[in-house]
């Protein structure tokens, strides 16, 4: 997304280009320069793409002569031999199907020679194309026998085919560049999502985990020795909670006997009694008896 990555891309593509990156002024926007001057792609701009001897060139030279300093820049604008050929053809305003192989070959070879003269390192593809053009030209000059025509593919047809195919995708790429695109033309709409805590599920707990935790605590407690966790019947502890809850609700002294329920039987009575004793021991309840053998009342201490 950053501009730097674009720079990288330019740099990386340099290695693909038919010429080495020698000296001349390289400007931003070169990559978007249009070699095809029939195109009205949005990438075309007013900025001169080359400065030669202080003179700004805003379009490609009309004739074949290209000031040597600008050649490199111009070549960077081509995406390869097919692109260069297309440019040469389009510049003459002729249909691909009507190409004069001889003339185009001549022009193409002039470019390539000039590049060689200037000792630019040409990509192999440019030379291959030059050779192919030369071959087509020579074959077109030779008289052909009927037999040959039947057996062979017209060499020009293959070239035209390639040029057409390339041009299709060149156009497709331009069309695609015009499609509304994320971050440039359209943007994903987002709004702050609701707080996840509103619906976050509570963790699941297995009772084993509680036991493991407890066993850890006990182990540590044993290690410290000072905190002996007593062993007692859970029923007493539970009853303590219940009694305390009951007393907290009442908030006043309640008769001691009201804490016991006959239906709980002997065991229940004992548990409740133990619980109250424990609560007294832990100073959680107050217990009063106004006279010997009188009614005993209990009250939660804090409330």
């Amino acid at each position, binding site marked *: 997304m950053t501009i730097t990555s674009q720079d990288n891309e330019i740099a990386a593509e340099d290695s693909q280009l038919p010429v080495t990156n020698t000296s001349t002024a390289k400007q931003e926007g070169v990559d978007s320069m249009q070699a095809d001057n029939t195109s009205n792609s949005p990438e075309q701009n007013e900025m001169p793409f080359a400065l030669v001897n202080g003179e700004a060139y805003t379009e490609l030279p009309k004739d074949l002569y290209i000031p040597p300093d600008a050649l490199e820049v111009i070549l960077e604008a081509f995406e390869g031999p097919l692109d260069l050929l297309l440019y040469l053809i389009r510049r003459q305003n002729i249909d691909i199907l009507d190409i004069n192989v001889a003339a185009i070959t001549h022009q193409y070879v002039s470019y390539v020679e000039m590049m060689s003269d200037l000792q630019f390192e040409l990509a192999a593809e440019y030379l291959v194309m030059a050779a192919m053009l030369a071959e087509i030209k020579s074959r077109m000059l030779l008289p052909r026998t009927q037999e040959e025509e039947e057996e062979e593919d017209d060499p020009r047809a293959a070239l035209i085919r390639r040029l057409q195919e390339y041009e299709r995708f060149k156009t497709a790429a331009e069309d695609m560049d015009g499609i509304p695109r994320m971050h440039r033309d359209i943007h994903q709409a987002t709004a702050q999502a609701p707080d996840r805590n509103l619906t976050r599920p509570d*963790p699941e707990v297995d009772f084993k985990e509680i036991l493991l935790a407890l066993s850890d605590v006990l182990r540590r407690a044993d290690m410290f020795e000072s905190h002996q966790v007593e062993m007692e019947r859970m029923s007493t502890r539970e009853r303590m909670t219940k009694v305390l809850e009951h007393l907290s609700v009442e908030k006043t002294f309640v008769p001691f006997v009201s804490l016991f329920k006959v239906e709980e039987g002997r065991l229940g009575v004992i548990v409740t009694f133990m619980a109250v004793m424990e609560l007294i021991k832990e100073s959680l309840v107050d217990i009063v008896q106004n006279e010997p053998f009188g009614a005993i009342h209990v009250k939660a201490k804090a409330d």
Partner: protein
Amino acid sequence: MIERQQLKKIIEGALLAYGQPLTVDKLHSLFATQMVDTEEGDPLPTQTQVDKSEIIDVLAEIQSDCENAGYELKEVSSGWRFQVREEMAPWVNKLWEEKPQRYSRALMETLAIIAYRQPITRGDIEEIRGVAVSSYIIKTLTEREWIKVIGHRDVPGRPSLFATTKQFLDYFNLKSLEELPSLQELTDIESINPELNLEVAEVVEEVVSAENSQKFVEQDNITESDNTVLEAETEAEAEADTQQESLHE
């Protein structure tokens, strides 16, 4: 001047595209400077002068527009933003797969201590655990409605007394606290025969606790009263003894 309808669309668009709060100043800055030409030579949007007050008006308008929508326009401390209404949370939040959370060790220990030693104050828990109990733990357990305050100890500071709740029992499928595995079983694990040296003790402990935890799972199926548990206890003791013997050999 930019048309009111257009202004509204731009502000809506900006807020939604940005996805974060935008101040009125920032929104205003979208209109304040002249549109810079792009290299493409696109036709320039008309130059606009928009007042901040107009932006504020538009924000209010958008706000009332979406009164019946699943989202709202809200001013928060760092600006205005669209946000999805909280009422949508039960459905919308299902878009994200929440991994089941886990409680911390400290929380589990605290819960265990409260379960077995209730009613108990925070101070008592800290004494047993040897470290402070964070408020977050108490809050979490209270919010889950697994513990509650059932009173206060009558000492300076009147600390709250915590106990487990009915919901706690329900969650663990217990009828009453009596059905909790007895502490005896756990302490059996701990009270290693003193004759054993520490190394051996640790081995036994590991073996036994593994077995015990398995047993506790099985106990979930036991509906009978203490007797069965006591039997199981005795059995466990016997087993532990056997193991210890074999280790002695």
